């Protein structure tokens, strides 16, 4: 395995809200090596974005972050002063956001915003900064880069703006890129292009990539490993092929059942949906978070918190006391019995 780029261990985020203390991220653990793409998947509201923001230290002001370990390469990010953190952000790790339409400052040219990133962190001249901007714009597939640099964000389409955001993230040659649903806001036709571009650049620059996405088809194609989140927790993680071939958590199985399979899923047939609702994350929940929706729930599931345990080799981990039964087809049995 390559160099460890990101280590996240027992990451927690707490946000005080009117109803009490919200725990949107509860003990998230994963890591990214150089050259790896780690995809975080899970339903809306399960804490994916907050996990990403917590890694970047960009959480909303009211949110509190704690972690056993949070490291970028050999540098701890936990308890680091904001000034030091600002030296790392945009330099050794960069983030790409969901909303390309609003993520660029309307008052400044593309060139200004691209060059600013590198002028802040590296001892380069304006001319060299411009050169790098032109080079990277070309690299992310923007033609006539010189002219584009002089344009303002409102003159660019959403797809182009997201390409600009990607180029901006690459300006300082970061070891890690965190991309939070970078294509959700874009046209379906452009989504695949952008994601493939990201995957390609990740390989070319040999970076670590954390990609948050809803698109399991993309996960299957570009992920090295997958982190499945549910209600603030990691419920299953492991190499992508294993997760897709033999999911061990009932939630992962449910999620995969939701993917339409060409040829197999008949037109007009209802896709699998996981019945029930995500539990409230306000206050403590000292037992399996998925219990209320799990088709194979047993009394023990509600007795105590379920740890994330290693399942076999290759870094496979599952948070389910019935993981072995799931692997053996307990869900299908439950499905036919019902």
């Amino acid at each position, binding site marked *: 395995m390559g160099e460890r780029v990101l280590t996240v261990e027992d990451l927690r985020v707490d946000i005080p809200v009117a109803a009490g203390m919200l725990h949107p991220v509860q003990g998230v653990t994963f890591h990214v090596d150089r050259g790896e793409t780690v995809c975080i998947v899970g339903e809306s509201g399960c804490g994916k974005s907050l996990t990403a923001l917590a890694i970047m230290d960009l959480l909303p002001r009211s949110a509190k972050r704690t972690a056993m370990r949070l490291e970028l390469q050999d540098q701890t990010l936990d308890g680091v002063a904001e000034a030091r953190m*600002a*030296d*790392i952000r945009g330099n050794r790790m960069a983030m790409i956001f969901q909303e390309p339409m609003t993520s660029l400052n*309307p008052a400044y040219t593309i060139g200004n915003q691209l060059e*600013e990133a590198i002028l802040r962190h590296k001892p380069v001249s304006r001319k060299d900064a411009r050169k790098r901007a032109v080079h990277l714009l070309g690299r992310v597939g923007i033609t006539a880069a010189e002219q584009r640099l002089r344009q*303002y964000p*409102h003159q660019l389409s959403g797809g182009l703006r997201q390409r600009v955001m990607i180029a*901006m993230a690459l300006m300082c040659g970061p070891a890690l890129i965190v991309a939070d649903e970078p294509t959700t806001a874009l046209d379906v036709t452009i989504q695949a292009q952008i994601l493939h571009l990201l995957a390609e650049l990740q390989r070319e620059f040999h970076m670590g990539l954390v990609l948050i996405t809803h698109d399991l088809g993309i996960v299957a194609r570009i992920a090295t490993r997958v982190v499945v989140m549910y209600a603030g927790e990691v419920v299953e993680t492991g190499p992508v092929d294993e997760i897709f071939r033999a999911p061990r958590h009932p939630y992962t199985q449910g999620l995969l059942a939701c993917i339409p399979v060409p040829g197999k899923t008949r037109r007009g047939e209802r896709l699998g949906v996981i019945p029930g609702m995500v539990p409230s994350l306000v206050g403590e929940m000292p037992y399996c978070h998925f219990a209320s929706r799990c088709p194979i729930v047993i009394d023990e599931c509600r007795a105590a918190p379920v740890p994330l345990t290693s399942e076999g080799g290759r870094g496979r981990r599952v948070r389910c006391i019935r993981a072995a039964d799931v692997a053996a087809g307990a869900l299908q049995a439950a499905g036919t019995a019902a």
Partner: protein
Amino acid sequence: MLAYSLKRLGVALLVALTVSLITFSMIYISGDPALAIAGEGARQQDVENIRRFYGFDRPIYVQYLDWLWSALHGDLGRSYNLRQPVADVIFQRLPTTMLLGACAITFALVLAIPLGVLAAVKPNSIFDRVSLTLAVIGQAMPSFWFALTLILWFGVYWRLLPITGQDSWWNFVMPSIALGYYVTPAVMRLTRAGMLEVLSSDYIRTARAKGLKPMRVLFKHALRNAIIPVVALAAVQFGFMLGGSIVIETIFQINGLGYLAWESIQRKDLPMMQAIVLVLSIIYVLITFLADMLNAFLDPRIRVA
């Protein structure tokens, strides 16, 4: 950008033309101007002579065009009282008023914008609440009362500043504060609101994600966008201040247009009043135009509109 500028310029000219029409008609608002000049109880023959002398007997549109033509050539008529061309008097007094206005608006902006930014950076803090309270008090306080309070403390009790006249820069301190203070609350609150909105926007998060220093995020990325509505407000407030200078210049006895307006009103010097209104309105139109240009510079999206 050029198309936008020309469009704004066109609008400005139209407004200026409208203003000139309104100002011209001021003469007739108070009734028969010939009678007004001749005075109550004048003989019919004298009134008729005056009417003919000043050309009030001609058709109204001829009078307007004639007046406009002269005004464009710098001839705004003769003062009834001072017996000299109105334009000469006005352009002699104008620099003083503009200086006062510039000092006042500078004072207001220099005070209000940083306060607004600070209040937005720490919303609902003690600082935010105190400045909000001051803002509310500021807007509720009549300017003449505030001016007199200033005079009382700084001029009479502490003897720190001269009370009247315009011999030195010190003379302008109190009038500028008295005139400008009224503008600070609105500017402060708009800056605060704008900053609050901008600071929670996605591109500020992007700027932070780039690792930019907090000051740079605040002033390069946030203030530039938050200040755009403030520019328009400042232009409008500058207009109010020109009006407010009548009170302030009179109180502090500063020989500007405001004071001149006060004297002219008292002496029913119609050409003078008319010209003052015209000049101040044109200045206001000009300032608004400049504010539009500044905003187009600040926000590239405006330029294409």
